[in-house]
């Protein structure tokens, strides 16, 4: 099987899984859900590290890669922290 074909299968299954999972999220939590998925998508930092840290990387690629690492780190750190901060505020009665 072609390597991209595997990727497309994975995409298909993950997208449907995503639909099922998100459908179950209570509308109460839609704002923290957005900051969480935002933080999750900052897994793009993986690509940024591969570009910036590659042994044959040119200076330009390293610079672009490092800016990308910075941008995704802002997103990851900020995203998880704000999600947690938001969720902490959701309390039941008398808690």
């Amino acid at each position: 099987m072609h390597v991209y074909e595997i990727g497309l299968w994975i995409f298909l299954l993950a997208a449907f899984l995503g639909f099922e999972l998100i459908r179950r999220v209570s509308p109460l939590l839609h704002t923290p859900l957005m900051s969480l998925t935002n933080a999750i998508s900052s897994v793009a930092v993986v690509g940024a590290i591969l570009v910036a840290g590659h042994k044959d990387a040119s200076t330009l690629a390293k610079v672009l890669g490092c800016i990308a690492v910075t941008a995704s780190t802002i997103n990851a750190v900020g995203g998880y922290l704000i999600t947690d901060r938001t969720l902490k505020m959701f309390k039941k009665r008398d808690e």
Partner: protein
Amino acid sequence: MQNVIYPIFYLFAAALYILALKWMSSPSTARRGVRAGETAMLLAVVGTLLRFEVVEYHWIALAFLIGAAIGAPLALKMPMTAVPQRTAIAQAFGALAAALIGTAELLEAHPSGFAMAALTVEMLLGYMTFTASLIAFGKLQELLPGRPMTYRGQNYFNLSVLAGAICLGVLMNQSADPMSIFPYFVGASLLFGILLILPIGGADMPTVIALLNSYAGLSACAMGFAFDNKLLIVAGALDGSSGFILSIIMCRAMNRSFTNVLFGGFGALQQSAAGSAEQRPVRSASPEEAASILDAARSVIIIPGYGLAVAQAQHKIREMHDILTKRGVEVRFAIHPVAGRMPGHMNVLLAEADIPYDKLVEMEEINGDFPMCDVALVIGANDVVNPAAKNDPASPIAGMPILEVDNARTVMIIKRGMAAGFAGIDNELYYMDKTLMLFGDAKSYVSSLVKELSAQGNE
């Protein structure tokens, strides 16, 4: 050896991302979901640093530090009312990262075939979402006017810019020298992002923010294809489907289609409605009168809207909620899905003020309770309670699901003046016999209600 380890790290990371979203389904497990997400991110980063082709650490470590130093204070210091802006700017950062990684990879690896196509999609989505999120941020932060900016032939112009960006992308894939086309491709993508958001007004922001979230995810997903990295594909697809579902929910809550939100130009409808408006008598009440009505009620439903966020009235409302609850009045909050500027905006504001989340009730659940409710108190909401959506097929918001406040025994509306809401439509609710208009700023009016209530309780 190293290259046997990292796929295992990635596999666990992907599993944890799925669990993170699963645990988000309920407030009791949601914080566990955040931990799972954090762990997954850590695994992904460590796994990647272990890969043998990654040899340069210094600059990456520095970039981590800078990123954390900017990201942490942003998240911890930011006031909760600024959550929509923060989401928009975070999406801009995420999209910028994706776009730059794509650019670097194009420069370095000279990819071809499928990888090049995936990279093109990644850059198109990345650059476009970057400027689009920046404009959305500008509108939410009120650096830019929040009203839709429209002009003649806008949709045709926007679509031709998009078509141009796509054509340039295709050319880049076929050309022997893609770098000669690359700057024009980037320019067209950036321009389309700006043009996409200019015509969008404040009330449509929830849909658009969710849609941009989806684009950022899909961009990461395309990166996964370009790098043949399954973890990126999974995480990107999860983010993409999440944003997509949320924007569908938002569209449904306004009875509008995607195309209508993106190309409808809601502002264009305003003139026709504004012409027929005339001076009609309304009943208004003083805080004293309003407080005694509230005090005598058995069941009160509060309907918050964006005006509450603007006035920062959530803490005062909590005081009022506490007083009324103590006197045996049942107080609940009715949350319309598109109230505010992003999905779930009102829930976060009220939770910030320590209002228990079981008091926040969704539209479908609470609509049946309005006939039994003594007082419906509308604070800073307008279009989401406008009965014209049900009764007037010619209204621009016809068919939009609303909170059926008009069924309550008494309706009280806190409002600065008689200006129309975002959609520019007059609201029948204001002129009904059972409606009392409470004119004033949401925060100061609720404060005086609190004062009156405590005074009356002491008599």
